């Protein structure tokens, strides 16, 4: 039972980190990154192959993968984050420069499907469809991963990472740079007319999001010790989108709330739906229909989400706020 609680806490942390990253891209900047999960997967694969022994080592001969460097703890996670960010550069350069935003979304969606297909079919890189297993948990050479202490430690590290990412995300959102990102989201043409470099803005937020996504993948893979193409199919990105739409686009607290409610809430609640009636695929079907209905329902009834983005109101420039002055509403 205890293990269950710790698993949930780690999943919650990973989902929150992922939602914060996607919120920076989708909520704050308006980039509909339908291939978000690919960056998470890149981080997970990197962290895995950096921490695993070479595939020629005894007990690993059933799988094939590159690297296998057996590096100590923080390096695989940092590597995962780094690769997530590096991967964002070519993708961004190719897809974010000239395209209209709806084309970008579609291109990213197609990219997500394609990368998964390639990794599934190409075995030498990350063991193809079977995926990587027996990935050593971080610090396992010092602390036995099957003890409660280790579990608490992992939850603690995840929590620290969450705080770190939240700090970074808050700094970005509240900075002049964040304001520029919101300007771009609201009206690209107006932002570029004011001399803002749209490509540079999109690229930086894409790379930052990629780094955080890579980190979230690294944390997840260290905990579950397994990573395969089936765990990062494109619909997983849609779950995160649902989380942000439900929580509140553009609001970091909303992203956290969404991360707790949607990816986590749904998987845990549907676990308690009695099985044994109806066709075997009924459970997942209900789950996905619920996710779809959440997205459509919220976009229809409450497009701003549960915790709407705070309206940032400025009074006249350079004048101290006084109780006699009316704050402009628009």
């Amino acid at each position, binding site marked *: 039972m205890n293990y269950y609680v710790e698993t949930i806490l780690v999943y919650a942390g990973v989902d929150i980190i992922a939602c914060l990253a996607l919120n920076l891209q989708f909520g704050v900047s308006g980039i509909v990154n339908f291939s978000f999960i690919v960056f998470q997967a890149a981080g997970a694969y990197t962290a895995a192959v950096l921490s695993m022994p070479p595939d020629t080592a005894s007990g690993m001969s059933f799988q094939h993968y590159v690297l296998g460097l057996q590096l100590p703890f923080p390096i695989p996670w940092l590597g995962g984050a780094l690769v997530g960010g590096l991967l964002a550069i070519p993708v961004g350069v190719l897809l974010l420069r000239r395209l209209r935003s709806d*084309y970008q979304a579609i291109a990213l969606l197609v990219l997500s*499907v394609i990368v998964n297909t390639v990794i599934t079919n190409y075995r030498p890189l990350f063991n193809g469809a079977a995926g990587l297993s027996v990935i050593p948990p971080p610090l396992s050479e010092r602390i036995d991963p099957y003890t409660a202490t280790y579990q608490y430690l992992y939850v603690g590290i995840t929590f620290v990472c969450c705080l770190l990412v939240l700090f970074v995300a808050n700094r970005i959102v509240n900075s002049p740079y964040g304001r520029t990102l919101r300007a771009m989201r609201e009206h690209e043409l107006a932002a570029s007319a004011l001399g803002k470099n749209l490509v540079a803005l999109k690229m930086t937020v894409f790379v930052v999001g990629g780094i955080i996504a890579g980190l979230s993948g690294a944390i997840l893979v260290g905990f579950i010790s397994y990573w395969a193409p089936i765990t990062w199919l494109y619909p997983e990105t849609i779950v995160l989108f649902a989380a942000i739409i439900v929580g509140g686009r553009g609001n970091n607290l909303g992203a956290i709330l969404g991360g707790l409610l949607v990816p986590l809430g749904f998987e845990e609640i549907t676990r308690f739906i009695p099985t044994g009636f109806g066709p075997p695929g009924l459970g997942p079907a209900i789950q996905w229909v619920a996710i*779809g209905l959440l997205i459509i329902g919220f*976009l229809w009834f409450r497009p701003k989400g549960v915790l709407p983005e705070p309206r940032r109101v400025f009074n006249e420039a350079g004048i101290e706020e006084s109780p006699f002055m009316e704050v402009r509403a628009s």
Partner: protein
Amino acid sequence: MDLYIAAFGFGLVSLSVIAIAAVGFTMQFGITNVINLAYSSVMISSVYVAYAFNHAGVSIWLALIAGAIFGAVFSFLLNRVLYTPFQRKGTSLLGMVIVSLATSLMIQNVLLAIAGPYNVSYVQPSGGTIRLGAIVLTVVQVLVIGIAVVLMLAIHALLTFTRLGKAMRATAANPTLARNCGIPTGRVIDVVWLITGALCGIAGVVAGMNSDTFAVGNGPGYLITIIAAAVLGGAGQPYGAMLGAVLIGEMTELSAAAISADYKEVVAFAVLVLVMVLRPQGLLAKRGALAAAG
């Protein structure tokens, strides 16, 4: 060399399937301004409706008609119940993309629960084969090519010679102006969804007839080739989609002969990225609402 000629023959069949599907997809975007990512889900649903009829003892040709009717009605309802209300509400293009993707997931998973994850196939007469040099095709495959040719000619005739087709083009170019000229754009759009839905259903069933087996999981794969063909030709333009289908169909089959059939969709994707980077407006660029803004 014979291998490539044979692959060219298979390419003729797959480009026919892609053409039917891509023309429907691109007309939805061009005329109603919805990028319908649920298109492939409707397509695979039609495949299974035809499958249900086919396995109840109905001939595959009647099942094809059933699939077409299902695709038409389903697409029509999708637009009436979901897309039109959201558009009226002023949802942005991006919002519509998210809505249609969510819808696609729902349809696909409900279908998965009903039909199961198994690979299945149609019961159809094996016919025989027709040889033309190194090209060897089954009678069914030749008929699929025939269906595609007939449908493309029909679409061309519809858009060029009929009042309805002119009304469609007017709606695509400028809906407000079309309405002011007395064109009932609402009804035109309804008809567009019926026609494109039927194309979607037919494309699905002929895709099923052309492949040895199919499964619910094939949906996203269809979508990639359809999007690639539509964007290559210029999104929203039926003739562009036909041209795109010819190129994508042949390229994927020839690459399958050269590399491996596993990477067919990757080739389609590579073409898609190249087009998006080099010529985002597509090969047949035109000004007006039908053309995507570059």
